[in-house]
């Protein structure tokens, strides 16, 4: 039998700087979340498939990685953290007064047809049982700060609203299939095909707004254009109110809009947003309001939140430079305490103990590893041998 020892497709070993970079982003994000009053929860790596089937998750069944539970039921590697946390909020936290601010730092697993990472470390927050503008303001501001605290310089968070598209579509005479096709074309910014699909509906009330919808992204001016094209809608007014409030708090320069952001319209019920950072080929942060998810588990609670793709953020930040080994410590029997004291007093990564018995071997080791000196603790005291 031929055994395979390399890592499965989409997974990899991470070495040294890559680990530190990930840890650094995690520490910055979780530090911010704690500062804002969020507390950590952690959910299992594997869950019953039923959980995600029940909630009509936007993640396709074939994208979930299945494992067999000893009970015979099918489990999946956690494909998303929001669904398990909604379960926690509705069950374990039943007696806890709401709203609850929860954060997590855990990996989600997704199977991709061709390439792509199967393991995606995420840090995210969920604000459970908080409806209305103040909750949205808090979460959007935290999303901007999450990218800022990581050290991203050129970035923005883009807001959309699930209701705007549905409002426009309701003003048209569309078959259900047409509606889904329309949604996909707007989401994919397929200008040509969108124009063609809507051509027979020319003259219907929302025609001009829908035809332009995939172009309606950019600064706050797109809200005004949308207002003009659609003759107004409560979602646009709401986005404008959010923008004004966030601008007065200094967040204006980081905000953009995309009214053509119409993904997962069965899941998201209000404001949706994504964060883009220069240097990353796709969104590094995504979130929105999902008011119907928690009640699936038996407790009514409107909620909003977002997740940050930790690796994607880590990749665009300046690389962590590992500290170089400077000193190798050689110690004689009885001198362990002194050796450890010296080791603990040096900056991490610059100093290590030599496991060798003789000073000569320790010097050889230091030379091989590129250290500059050997610090010797012996009966006679302490001395330094330069390499």
């Amino acid at each position, binding site marked *: 039998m031929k055994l395979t020892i390399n890592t499965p497709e989409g997974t990899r070993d991470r070495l040294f700087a890559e680990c530190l970079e990930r840890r650094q982003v995690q520490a910055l994000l979780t530090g911010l979340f704690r500062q804002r009053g969020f507390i950590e929860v952690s959910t299992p790596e594997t869950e019953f498939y039923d959980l995600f089937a029940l909630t009509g998750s936007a993640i396709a069944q074939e994208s979930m990685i299945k494992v067999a539970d000893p009970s015979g039921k099918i489990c999946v590697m956690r494909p998303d953290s929001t669904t398990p946390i909604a379960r926690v909020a509705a069950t374990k936290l039943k007696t806890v007064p709401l709203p609850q601010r929860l954060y997590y730092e855990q990996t989600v697993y997704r199977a991709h047809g061709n390439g792509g990472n199967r393991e995606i470390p995420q840090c995210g927050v969920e604000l459970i049982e908080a409806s209305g503008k103040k909750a949205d303001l808090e979460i959007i501001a935290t999303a901007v700060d999450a990218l800022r605290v990581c050290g991203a310089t050129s970035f923005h968070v883009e807001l959309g609203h699930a209701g705007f598209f549905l409002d426009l579509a309701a003003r048209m005479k569309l078959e259900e299939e047409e509606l889904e096709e329309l949604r996909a074309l707007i989401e994919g910014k397929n200008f040509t095909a969108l124009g063609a699909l809507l051509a027979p509906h020319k003259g219907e009330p929302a025609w001009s707004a829908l035809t332009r919808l995939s172009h309606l*992204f950019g600064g706050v001016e797109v809200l005004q254009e949308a207002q003009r094209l659609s003759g107004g809608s409560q979602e646009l007014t709401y986005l404008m109110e959010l923008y004004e409030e966030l601008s007065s708090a200094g967040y204006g320069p980081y905000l953009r809009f995309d009214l053509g952001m119409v993904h997962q319209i069965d899941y998201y019920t209000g404001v949706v947003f994504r964060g883009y950072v220069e240097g990353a*080929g796709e969104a590094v942060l995504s979130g929105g309001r999902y008011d119907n998810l928690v009640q699936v588990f038996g407790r009514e609670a409107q909620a909003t939140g977002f997740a940050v793709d930790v690796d994607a953020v880590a990749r665009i930040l300046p690389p962590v430079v590992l500290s170089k080994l400077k000193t190798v410590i050689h110690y004689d029997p009885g001198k362990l305490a002194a050796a450890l004291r010296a080791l603990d007093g040096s900056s991490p990564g610059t100093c290590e103990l030599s496991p060798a018995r003789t000073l000569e071997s320790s010097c050889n080791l230091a030379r091989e590893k590129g250290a500059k000196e050997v610090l010797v603790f012996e009966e006679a005291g302490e001395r330094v041998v330069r390499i």
Partner: protein
Amino acid sequence: MRDRMRIALTKGRLQTRSVELFEQVGLDCSPVRDPGRRLIHSLPNYPLDVVLAKASDVITYAEHGVCDMGIVGKDTILEHGGAFYEVLDLGFGVCRFALAVKEGTDFYGTYKTRRIASKYPGVTRAFFEAKGMDVDIIKIEGSVELAPILGLADAIVDIVETGATLKANGLIPIETVAEVSARLIVNTASMKLYKAQIEDFLTKIQQQTA
């Protein structure tokens, strides 16, 4: 802010047509026409760099954001898939995917599992799945027309332009699987981060192709 955008063009016929289109809207494409050994070509009078690549690589580059845009055939998009914005139908490179059978055979008139040869197994699978038909798909890399002649397959799914090659080999197209033409695709993050630059380019192209 990056000041130059990068576009990947599919080598070959789409490249020629793309360059013609760019020149019609006033872009100086002389570096692309005379590439020498260089792989990236900077247009002198417009902030755009051009990369030439195989069709499926155009999608890969645009998807990963190393190129902001790409020009690629719908055939490759259908087969390859991927997450990007497919913004414009450029109207050239027009052809279609067709199901073709040996002249005189009744493809649907049997319950026997049909065997289909194609360079595009993904497109073929999706087509027959939508019909609820189980078929055996055989991936062929070269001349697909050979498969029915040799008795390897009952039919083929392939790109058809004039139908001349099919006819010469005793095959006739019986059904259109999908219409194909060149598409302009845009990386999702680039669209958002460099909106002004990309829209400027798209507007030029759109005015010319409309």
